[in-house]
């Protein structure tokens, strides 16, 4: 029977020839990701389960990223629980503050995910690794405790929506704009319980960073995962890890999709999603003149070096607007070093930005830049729900790094 990438990866991990959409399976996982905010509850459940050892210490990743550096005493205790658990389990992939990063940028950069893998993570943006052709999805803390204990977890096999993206992207337009545009078309539940498979010449030409951004946002359409089939760009990325053996997985040409869409992006303007849903996408030109108090540049969605380069280019040597704050968050220790080596750390600092440590902080309204009552933000992050980034009356617009850079210097939503 012809199968999609999603069906092939799930069937291989369930030890089956093939799987049907809607079928409930138990499948073996290759990597289980947890963070300081989700691990402590899992540890409690894991102990209640009577489990003593994780199925394979090398297949769990424990990442300090959400509330770090510890924002308060309770956050410090969460990290402490994870730190002690890592020691107890002798888990090699524990990432300490200062040697860590936002999990979804960190794991691929550490060679912990490869094409064809089945990855689960107690963080909804775990779908990011679909950019490498892995089936990768978000779970809860009890799920994670189960995966730690058994090395497997239950999945309902999703049908796949094929999204073909075609056309040469205009200057300043990238993975974030494609994602916001597609979510705008599909809606925030348009892909509920389903996988999104991105194909087409635009995707083939999209660099890996852009693919990570695109798949990262699959959850914002409700999807279980976003997927891009492996190609030469995937292979070039994986060449960093010559010790890893992997086989690309492709959908069969006759595989059945539940829906198929084609979007031509050759005239796409940079997209901005208005409050309070990521699906409220409009062209940046529609929002000209909206005053912005704070711009946040970074996150697991747009936290790679190329994102910071694009934002700096859009700033064109100008200073951050006097009424606006620019918070720059490199997504990992490695990206921080890249900002230093490239001179961008100086560029942003001289422009009047503040550079924070790698953390999810402002994206989840945790710390490192919370919005006050009625404040307006423009963020390169992934969600703009009520109260997510600060006071419930604050408003966040989502955009890519080019619009973020242009907005930071103009003090209002601006096109680069």
């Amino acid at each position, binding site marked *: 029977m012809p199968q999609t990438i999603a069906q092939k990866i799930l069937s291989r991990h369930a030890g089956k020839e093939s799987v049907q959409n*809607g079928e409930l399976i138990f499948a073996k996982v290759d990597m289980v990701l947890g963070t300081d905010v989700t691990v402590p509850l899992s540890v409690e459940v894991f102990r*209640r389960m*009577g489990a003593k050892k994780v199925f394979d210490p090398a297949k769990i990743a424990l990442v300090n990223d959400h509330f770090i550096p510890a924002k308060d005493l309770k956050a410090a205790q969460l990290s402490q629980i994870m730190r002690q658990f890592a020691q107890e389990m002798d888990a090699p992939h524990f990432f300490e503050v200062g040697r860590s990063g936002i999990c979804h940028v960190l794991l691929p950069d550490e060679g912990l995910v490869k094409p064809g893998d089945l990855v689960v993570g107690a963080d909804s943006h775990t779908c990011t690794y679909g950019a490498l052709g892995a089936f990768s999805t978000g779970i809860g803390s009890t*799920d994670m405790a189960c995966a730690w204990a058994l090395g497997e977890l239950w999945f309902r096999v999703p049908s796949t929506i094929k999204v073909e993206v075609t056309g040469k992207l205009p200057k300043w337009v990238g993975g974030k704009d494609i994602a916001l545009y597609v979510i705008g078309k599909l809606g925030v539940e348009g892909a509920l319980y389903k996988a999104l498979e991105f194909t087409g010449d635009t995707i083939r030409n999209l660099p890996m960073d852009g693919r990570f951004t695109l798949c990262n946002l699959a959850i914002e359409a409700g999807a*279980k995962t976003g997927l891009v089939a492996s190609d030469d760009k995937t292979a070039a990325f994986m060449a960093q890890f010559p010790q890893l053996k992997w086989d690309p997985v492709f959908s069969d040409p006759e595989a059945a999709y539940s829906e198929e869409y084609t979007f031509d992006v050759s005239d796409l303007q940079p997209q901005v999603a208005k409050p309070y849903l990521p699906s409220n996408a409009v062209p940046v030109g529609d929002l000209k003149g909206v005053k912005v108090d704070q711009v946040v540049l970074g996150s697991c969605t747009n936290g790679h070096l190329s994102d910071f380069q694009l934002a700096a280019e859009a700033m064109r040597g100008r200073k951050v607007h006097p009424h606006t704050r620019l918070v720059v968050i490199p997504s990992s220790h490695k990206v921080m070093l890249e900002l230093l080596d490239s001179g961008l750390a100086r560029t942003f600092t001289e422009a009047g930005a503040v550079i924070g440590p790698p953390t999810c902080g402002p994206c989840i309204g945790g710390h490192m830049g919370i919005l006050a009552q009625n404040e307006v933000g423009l963020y390169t992050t992934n969600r703009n729900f*009520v109260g997510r980034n600060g006071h419930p009356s604050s408003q966040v617009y989502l955009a890519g790094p080019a619009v973020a850079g242009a907005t930071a210097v103009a003090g209002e939503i601006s096109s680069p």
Partner: protein
Amino acid sequence: MEGNVFKYGANVDTDVIIPARYCTSFHKEELAPHCLEDLDATFAKRVQPSDIIVAGRNFGCGSSRENAPLAILGAGVGAVVAESFARIFYRNSINVGLPILECPEAAQAAQNGDRLAIDLEKGVIRNLTRGGQYTAVPFPESIRRIMEIGGLEEYVKHRLMTNDK
């Protein structure tokens, strides 16, 4: 089970169910006072044991935080009836034992303050205020099996005890 309806719209996300600023705790008693506070500041004060949240489509979208169904459980809510549920929230609710019922007709008909009677076993929802009776979308058989054992935690416990890895 019987309770009063607290009705909300579509896309009630886990950030409004329990904002991240409170997710330094994962104990339901500590989360409960802040449940839904950015959407309905008085919810946690007004809700009574076994009251029912009724909402539109895509309830529980967003973050994977299991703190969300825990906060709702902690608040004493007896069940959530919605037109549809986001998938991680759906998993988490099953895993922590929060009764969820997918039933567009019941969700659309019910209004704030209505009294509902729910038979969780049968998935039947009766609106005592307006008189309608509805049946929720049944859980897939294999999910029912996990629920019958007492949830995923009990399932894993059982497998570890029987050494069935």
